[in-house]
């Protein structure tokens, strides 16, 4: 049972990190469905750099920068040039799949090396608690970072002036503009920060969950993170709970398989997507999406 708890939290960490990055972006009114590609670029950048330098820490930072670089392309087209966000996001995904594929085949050919791994960190004191201690407080750093970040983002949006401005840009870009907020600058910064987090989340795949890079290894995790943002109703707390829920579902799949239950695994893989759709379809009341989500902002001619 505590193995299940441990796996749930461990698998939820990177998902939460990616979802929080997307949350930052979406709260300013921009939707980046290129998150899958951003994570994939992060995974490759982190892997290549960790292999080259032998340092997983440098790898993680490089992963973030790689995600951010792709985010810059997204911001240039979707925010600065105001092209359709959905279409640009699709292009970003295709680009990432192609670029990482070409780069990994060119660099490694058939012989992909293994990367230095990021171990777990035991929180002093807490890890000594019987039964739940080792499960909850001996985790990869991604988990602690993601949870701390959720708290920080919650405070940022609720308690700070810039947070208020960011939310204003997402709810009504025009009103924010009239108040003197630089809409485009806020959105570009949000995209860059958010995709940095997406890249860092991607780095968990080759550095923490397995030690190799394989083509397309994100395997839909970026889209699950998108679903988590919606499922969590665009709030940091909701997103955290949703990420834990999907992490638990993922962990349950391994747990049941290890115990010899012969369950069709596609059902488990389908689960996050189907649940999100069902929740969207059956939830009553007003959806709490930022009002201007997905809309390009163009200042009207004076």
């Amino acid at each position, binding site marked *: 049972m505590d193995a299940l708890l441990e796996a749930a939290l461990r698998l939820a960490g990177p998902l939460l990190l990616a979802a929080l990055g997307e949350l930052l972006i979406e709260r300013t009114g921009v939707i980046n469905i290129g998150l899958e590609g951003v994570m994939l670029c992060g995974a490759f950048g982190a892997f290549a750099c960790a292999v080259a330098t032998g340092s997983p820490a440098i790898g993680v930072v490089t992963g973030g920068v790689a995600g951010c670089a792709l985010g810059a392309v997204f911001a240039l087209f979707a925010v600065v*040039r105001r092209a359709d966000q*959905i*279409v640009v996001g699709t292009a970003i995904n295709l680009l990432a799949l192609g670029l990482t594929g*070409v780069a990994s085949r060119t660099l490694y050919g058939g012989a992909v090396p293994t990367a230095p791994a990021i171990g777990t960190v035991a929180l002093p004191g807490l890890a000594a608690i019987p039964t739940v201690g080792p499960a909850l407080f001996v985790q990869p750093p991604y988990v602690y970072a993601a949870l701390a970040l959720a708290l920080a983002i919650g405070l940022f949006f609720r308690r700070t002036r810039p947070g208020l401005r960011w939310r204003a840009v997402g709810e009504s870009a025009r009103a924010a503009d009239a108040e003197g907020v630089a809409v485009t600058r806020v959105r570009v910064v949000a995209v860059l920060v958010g995709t940095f987090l997406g890249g860092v989340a991607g780095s968990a795949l080759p550095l923490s969950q397995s030690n190799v890079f394989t083509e397309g290894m994100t395997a839909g995790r970026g889209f699950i993170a998108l679903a988590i943002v919606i499922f969590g109703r665009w709030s940091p707390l909701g997103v955290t709970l949703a990420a834990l829920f999907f992490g638990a579902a993922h962990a349950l799949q391994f747990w049941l398989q290890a115990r010899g239950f012969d369950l069709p695994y596609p059902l488990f893989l*389908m689960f996050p*997507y189907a649940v999100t759709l069902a929740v969207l379809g059956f939830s009553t009341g007003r959806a709490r999406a930022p009002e201007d*989500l997905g809309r390009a902002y163009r200042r009207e001619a004076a």
Partner: protein
Amino acid sequence: MTAPQRAARLLERAPWVATIGAPVAAIGIVALGLALLGQRPGPALAAMLRGSFGDADAVVTTLLKASPLLLTGTAVALSFRCGVWNIGAEGQLVTGAVLATAMATRIAPDAPAFVLLPLCVAAGAAGGAALAALAGLLRVKRGVSEVIATLLLNFVALQALALAVHGPLQETSAAYPQSDALPAAALLPAAGRLHLGVALAGAMAVATAWLLFRTPAGFRLRAVGLSPVAARFAGLSPEREVMHALVLAGALAGIAGAFEVMGVTRRLFEGLASGAGYTAIAVALLARLHPLAVLPAALFFGALEAGAGAMQRNAGVPSVVTQVVQGLVILLSLGFGAGEVRLLAGRARSRPLAGEPAAREP
């Protein structure tokens, strides 16, 4: 007049410059990148050309690769024209393939060809249309963004395919996760590898162009795409048109899936979903959302896929480079932004992505 303004004027007057320019520039950028990686782009491009148009066999491969793109590209162009951001062609194609296989191997395996062929195509169309209609209902009835719905349904469909080939549709010997071979009566008539579906796909693109630009139904779809509010004041129901667009697009993508199992793979297996639904977005944008222009655009991306294999074998350049080209073509089509694409790129959508149900618009 500054240089960008001059360029914009040129594109305004001659939109074909962007249509030709985007793929040429994309290939140029990729060639430059390959050169920087230490590859020789010249021989790679030559190998790609030989692999896509070098001989009769290569041309057939190109046509076979272009055929599903033709249908999914038309589907995407049709729904974008109605302002419906359908990015679920991949899932719709897969559902079509699953249902066509179910029809051929389980429901009516002993039917004669003149019954089974139309039944299988109809099953494929119904499968794709049903999946798209689900996304449509979520948008129209519950105000769920069709972007999110179609995107998530892609993954539901992919896992449904996996379930099908591990379960109810698995081959009788249960050796591999794949379906039984389709009965001969369910295979599309073919000359060599070239099956009838290729011609039918072209015909359907032409028919869609006719529907969109020459019929009242098509006019209604486009009117809603241009301005749902104006369309409502004119007495149209945007909800209805959105459903029509999604069902039609879903059916086209579903038929693409049916044709793949009935003409190319002859079995169902998980690798069947090869990204044709996502490439379709590049196809539709390059074609500036015109179904007739989808014909050459699909041919271009088909040739790219056909040539990529040859390029990998003969010049050692990884075939995944085609996805870089696809992504670049999308970005460059938006960047060059002429005519319809610029309209699509610059227009604020009529409603935010996940806000109020569309029914509450004035």
